[in-house]
């Protein structure tokens, strides 16, 4: 579980995050949503420890990040997996080398043990046979799956995803979303996903955290998103034509 308490963060005098407090539960897909510029990415980078908070704190299973030594912070980061928006695969390495990389860096496994683990994870994300290809030789959807495989290969306790299905066609996006949800449940990971895709919210969201202008505007269970009176949330949800039409139909009693 990740607990965020009164988190503030800014750059060059501009406040980006303004007193965010929330929790992200283990074994659930927690979604951070909001419009562009609402502070989602900065929030996610604070959760990853890439940005230190100006005020407030973030605790990982009871351990406050601010109070950790550099070695402890490094150990904690090794328990985190991250799927970047652009996949961030190492382009000089093959698919298998990318997935193997965290194992080589952080485990004392033998070569055969690492090979077995890489094959197991690649099989889990349906990428058998692509192990010798370079990232530039595979599709965007496959790159995302490699990024997920790399993120989970060391059995992380926390999985973070920054807009994991951006730039993907709707069908592939659903495959990626479902894969993340399955892995979250299968390995009991605390998953935090940054998205502005309402399809993802409906497909895999459990807890939803809505940011607006750096404030936590609203948070609740996914089922509450269509019942809330919060204007900012309804504006965001019904900015999608599909959901707008569903809403109009609901109001007309159809």
């Amino acid at each position: 579980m990740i607990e965020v308490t009164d988190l503030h963060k800014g750059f060059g005098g501009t406040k980006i995050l303004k007193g965010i407090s929330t929790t992200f539960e283990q074994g659930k897909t927690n979604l951070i949503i909001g419009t562009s510029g609402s502070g989602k990415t900065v929030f996610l980078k604070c959760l990853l420890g890439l940005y230190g908070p100006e005020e407030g704190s973030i605790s990982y299973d009871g351990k406050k990040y601010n109070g950790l030594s550099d070695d402890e912070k490094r150990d904690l980061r090794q328990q985190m997996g991250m799927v970047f928006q652009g996949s961030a695969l190492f382009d000089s390495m093959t698919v298998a080398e990318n997935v193997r990389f965290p194992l080589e860096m952080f485990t004392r496994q033998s070569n055969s043990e690492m090979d077995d683990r890489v094959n197991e994870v690649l099989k889990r994300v349906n990428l058998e046979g692509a192990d010798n290809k370079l990232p530039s030789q595979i599709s965007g959807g496959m790159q995302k799956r490699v990024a997920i495989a790399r993120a989970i290969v060391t059995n992380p306790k926390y999985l973070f995803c920054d807009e994991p299905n951006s730039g993907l066609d709707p069908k592939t996006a659903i495959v990626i979303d479902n894969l993340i949800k399955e892995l979250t449940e299968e390995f009991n990971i605390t998953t935090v996903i940054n998205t502005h895709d309402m399809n993802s919210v409906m497909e895999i969201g459990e807890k939803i955290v809505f940011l607006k202008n750096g404030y936590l505007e609203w948070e609740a269970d996914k089922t509450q998103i269509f019942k809330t009176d919060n204007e900012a949330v309804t504006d965001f949800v019904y900015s999608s034509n599909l959901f707008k039409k569903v809403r109009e139909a609901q109001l007309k009693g159809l």
Partner: protein
Amino acid sequence: MTKRKVLWKLIIKEVDDLITSSLGIVAFISFFIGAVVAIQTALNLTDPLIPKELIGFASRQSVILEFAPTFISVIMAGKVGSFITSSIGTMRVTEQIDALEVMGINSLNYLVFPKIIALLVYPFLIAIAMFLGIFGGYVAGVYGGFVSSEEFMTGVREEFIPFHLIYSFLKTFIFAFLLATIPSFHGYYMKGGALEVGKASTTSFVWTTVAIIIVNYVITQILLS
């Protein structure tokens, strides 16, 4: 902490990318510049009292003292320096450096340290440049009919001061450090997108060249004057 096995692989890869891949261009330039130095010297020897051995002597001195360590380093600032800046800069733009940080890896150490170690091999490249530069002078001088083989070789051996080699390799080591660090700095700390990667590569070439020229002047002033 980068694991020893991974670090070793990275160093080997960097040696291949930075040194081995530069062998061809360094050999090509060294040979022909050495040849041109010999021809220019020969063409300017209009006084019959000046011995022809001077062609070999001038080739050796210019190649060992300046051409091989300094001129090749400026060329390497363009070739290797741009490569380092653009590869690290692209990793920054595509969040690969963030990915390393998230994994708990010291990205600066992971990306720059192997390059510094790999460039310790750089003096070998300069030694090859020295040999080929003098060999180019020999070929152009002898086969161009400017000097006999014996005269050229006598000139090459004449008044040889071993300290010149120490001076030359000492500054080569310092240039190697500059070649690894300045382009890495410009790549690692760049901000922006693909356009900025190009701009950072150009800036890194300019600053590496400026640093090499200034350091060359300072070392020469200290050690040879």
